[in-house]
């Protein structure tokens, strides 16, 4: 809200510079977000939090300055007019729903001369950012900013049937509001209507056909209280927020309803030459009882950890306009003024005392913290951190992608859309569903970087995916990675090579080794449709699929503007977690030396290498310490359709040094078994 400093000074003494005032207000809780030098003098922009609707008026801000300063004077406008009964004799007002409209006041002013406003009024209205319209309308706006109470002036002669009804609209009823827009209403909207038609959307905006113009002679002035929730709902529904609706939805001050009406009527008579009718309509004239809150000095000093004596507490409460009813030296019964609807319980008062006392004066202390053992021993956080660290040590850069994606991206990757969870109110179609897999983000990140000619991209992401399984929405933790480009960017010693399927496989193997997971294997089926089936594998742990790796189908890469091979993988962390071994136990290694032997095996290309390895292990048993593939050769030295695999086998015993004869014997046995069982050739 805009606060013109010169105007504000009419209501409260300000004896500090504008910069000092900004500091005081900001540190007191009313944040000044900008100071402008304008033709109207200095204007503050203040941010009134939603719990302080009383700050949406200049008088409210004057009260705040008075409370913070503790000295000076408040200069309240003093306009009290007669409130004679008998209004219904001149005009009929019917309130159909007292809950939607708890208080409605009205006054009639006859023979007004509607003209352009006097200079002082024009300036004040313009300083608040509004256009000056005419004296009567400007006065209603002036009083709105003064008291925070929205008012509306109707042209009496345009109201049909000498009657105003405050009622709910009928479905389909139309109204052309002051902004020139024709609106269709529904039965949840509260309207002000005459016998024929709605003449205002209650609390939001009046209609064109009842507005005060330069031909108006008789005015009926409305000052009312409308239900906050109803005004808010209506305002959101029709997409219209006005200075009025903004204040009603935060709840206006009950007491100000009448005061503002008097003030506006007084000003209209003074500056628009009208004759005031003394009859006053008030649907709820009875005085409302004020809220009482009990608070003790002990509570205050305990919660704030300050030393404050009861004299100081009294002073602060008084400055805030709070009267003390039955109070002792240490406990206070506080009567809360009508404009402080935000003060309902003791802690609300404690905040008031703290901020007037000054938050700065509250000491700094460290509590004695007691950790929660169950949380401290949680393994899941450790797992997440460990997985991330492993990927970092393998040379991957962590990425963070949006959890939301678009159906188009999912379709481009042949991911199933049936169990995908949509957002009811998305901000765009590109981020309208929750991602069921991290791969869409990984492929997009790979695309982004490859398109910027990054020669080697190794990325990973550990985050949640969302889908509907068995009718329930589930949130699962996955880790996914992507590889593309050169294997080694900086290696000028060897021939350049590209990252391939085996780098992806190796990543998974390294990850599982670091997590001490064994008993896993790779299967040729079960992976997603985005993979090239000749170059992909599913990862199995105890016969359950826990992820997949492989090359992304070349045809799909077109949609992502990628024209180099791309390898990705995804693992379900929730499924892997139970298999992680968090215990570390030392396993003694043999003190006897190993003997190494090479073996080159020629087999048909379609025979899996694992067949060879299982035979070697089976025959060699515990004496085969390690089997390392060091070459795979296809070429002229080997028959067509065959491949030569060269292994280095390390033989070692836990109990003694193996002799050459023992090793040779075992090695021959293995060679024989390979030849007999697998029909291979040994080179």
């Amino acid at each position, binding site marked *: 809200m805009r606060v013109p400093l010169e105007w504000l000074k009419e209501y409260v003494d300000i004896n500090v510079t504008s910069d000092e005032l900004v500091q005081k207000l900001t540190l007191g809780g009313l944040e000044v977000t900008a100071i402008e030098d304008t033709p109207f003098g200095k204007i503050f922009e203040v941010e009134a939090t*939603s719990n302080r609707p009383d700050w949406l008026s200049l008088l409210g801000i004057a009260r705040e300055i008075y409370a913070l300063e503790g000295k000076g004077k408040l200069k309240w406008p003093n306009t009290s007019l007669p409130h004679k009964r008998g209004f219904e004799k001149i005009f009929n007002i019917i309130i159909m729903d007292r809950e939607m409209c708890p208080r409605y006041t009205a006054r009639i002013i006859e023979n007004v001369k509607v003209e352009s406003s006097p200079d002082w009024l024009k300036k004040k209205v313009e300083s608040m950012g509004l256009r000056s319209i005419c004296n009567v309308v400007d006065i209603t706006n002036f009083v709105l900013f003064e008291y925070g109470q929205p008012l509306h002036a109707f042209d009496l002669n345009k109201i049909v049937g000498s009657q105003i009804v405050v009622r709910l609209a009928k479905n389909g009823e139309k109204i052309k509001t002051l902004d020139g827009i024709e609106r269709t209403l529904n039965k949840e909207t509260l309207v002000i209507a005459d016998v024929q038609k709605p003449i205002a959307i209650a609390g939001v905006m009046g209609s064109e056909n009842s507005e005060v113009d330069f031909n108006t002679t008789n005015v009926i002035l409305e000052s009312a209280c409308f239900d906050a929730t109803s005004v808010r709902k209506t305002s959101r529904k029709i997409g219209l927020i006005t200075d009025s609706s903004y204040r009603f939805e935060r709840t206006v001050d009950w007491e100000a309803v009448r005061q503002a009406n008097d003030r506006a009527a007084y000003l209209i008579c003074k500056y628009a030459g009208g004759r005031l009718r003394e009859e006053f309509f008030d649907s709820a004239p009875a005085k409302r009882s004020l809220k009482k809150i009990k608070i003790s000095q002990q509570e205050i000093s305990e919660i*704030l950890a300050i030393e404050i004596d009861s004299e100081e507490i009294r002073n602060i409460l008084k400055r805030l306009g709070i009267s003390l009813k039955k109070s002792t030296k240490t406990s206070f019964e506080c009567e809360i003024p009508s404009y402080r609807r935000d003060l309902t319980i003791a802690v609300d008062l404690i905040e008031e005392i703290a901020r007037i006392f000054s938050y700065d004066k509250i000491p700094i202390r460290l509590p004695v913290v007691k950790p929660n053992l169950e949380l401290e021993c949680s393994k899941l956080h450790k797992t997440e951190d460990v997985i991330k660290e492993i990927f970092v040590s393998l040379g991957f850069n962590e*990425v963070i992608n949006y959890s939301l994606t678009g159906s188009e991206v999912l379709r481009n990757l042949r991911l199933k859309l049936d169990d995908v969870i949509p957002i009811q*109110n998305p901000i765009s179609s590109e981020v309208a569903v929750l991602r069921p897999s991290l791969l869409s983000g990984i492929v997009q990140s790979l695309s982004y970087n490859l398109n910027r000619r990054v020669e080697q991209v190794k990325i990973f992401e550990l985050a949640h995916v969302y889908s509907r399984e068995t009718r329930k929405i589930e949130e699962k933790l996955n880790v996914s990675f992507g590889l593309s480009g050169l294997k080694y960017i900086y290696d000028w010693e060897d021939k350049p090579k590209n990252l391939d399927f085996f780098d992806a496989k190796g990543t998974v193997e390294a990850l599982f080794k670091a997590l001490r997971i064994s008993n896993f294997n790779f299967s040729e089926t079960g992976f997603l449709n985005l993979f090239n089936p000749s170059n992909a594998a599913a990862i199995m742990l105890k016969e359950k699929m826990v992820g997949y790796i492989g090359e992304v189908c070349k045809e799909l890469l077109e949609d992502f503007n990628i024209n180099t091979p791309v390898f990705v993988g995804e693992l379900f962390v929730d499924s892997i977690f139970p298999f992680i071994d968090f215990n570390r136990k030392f396993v003694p290694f043999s003190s006897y030396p190993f003997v190494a032997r090479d073996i080159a095996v020629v087999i048909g290309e379609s025979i899996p290498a694992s067949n060879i390895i299982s035979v070697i292990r089976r025959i060699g048993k515990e004496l085969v310490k390690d089997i390392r593939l060091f070459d795979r050769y296809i070429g002229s030295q080997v028959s067509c359709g065959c491949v030569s695999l060269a292994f280095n086998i390390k033989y070692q015993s836990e109990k003694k040094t193996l002799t050459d004869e023992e090793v040779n014997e075992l090695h021959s046995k293995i060679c024989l078994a390979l030849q007999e069982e697998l029909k291979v050739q040994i080179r």
Partner: protein
Amino acid sequence: MQEKLREIETIAQQEITRATSVEELENVRIQYLGRKGVLTELLRNIKDIPLSERPLIGKQANVIKQKLLSSIEVRIRTVGRQEKRGKKVDITLPGIKPAVGTLHPITQVTKEIGNIFSSLGFSRIDGPEIETTFRNFEALNIPQDHPSRDSFDTFYLEKDLLLRSHTSPVQIRAMEKYRPPLYIFVPGRVYRPDAVDASHSFMFHQIEGLAVDKGITFADLKGVLHMFVLKMFGEKTKMRFRPHFFPFTEPSAEVDISCIICGGKGCRVCSQKGWLEILGAGMVHPNVFRSVGYEPKQCRGFAFGMGVERIAMLKYGIDDIRFFFENDCRFLRQF
């Protein structure tokens, strides 16, 4: 004869000095001092020398022999060292760097912040991103159709599920599961339907904290946050608490730090104010305790929260929040 010996010594020494390999030196030794060596041959012919001169010649020859052996030994050591070192390498050729991985800056900042609170004794807890309306709003004293709901508006899924707009629902879960004393911090992703621009994103990260225990005061809240500010931004950093409003805390505050760019003098980053807002905090509202089944009259607690992207942008001088989610390697590899 003496002349001859001196000549041989000189030539042999030259050859020793010129030798560049152990092999060459071995050849020199064989050539001069071996069984068929020059010196050896010469000494064989000592019978041709008169008797009186023989002892002198013999002594001279031996001296020369020892000298040459010594020179050869020394030279072998030098040349041997050189041989072991191998051919001289061009050290200005680029090194072969293995790929160095990185954690995302958001992960790094989250870790750093988490470590500070861990060091103060707070335990980390996580919770789901998909939440119920109750835990995201009503349990936190944010009623339906209330203006305060505007600042926390979020994405709705189906029935009464939504994407959480802050990590506070996890604190509700923690209080539903555990009894006080409770000292926790919660990192996590949150969602707000804001249009994406340089300082807003519809998805971002928060870290919130909660302490519920007998005798917790506002001073404790100040103390914990002060310690955080000093550890995170440096001992010279100043902190100030400003009254504010949150539906789930009362008293509430916004916490500023002295601008880390200009030190408080005023600059573009802090909009000339000298202060940067980084945290929201306050004493837990009794209605929140009530909604989790804690007895409000017996409970005291404080809570605080901060945006991780904001802290990261201040700390690393990043001026556009979109960098975090674009995942450009040129950005990621800087951290």
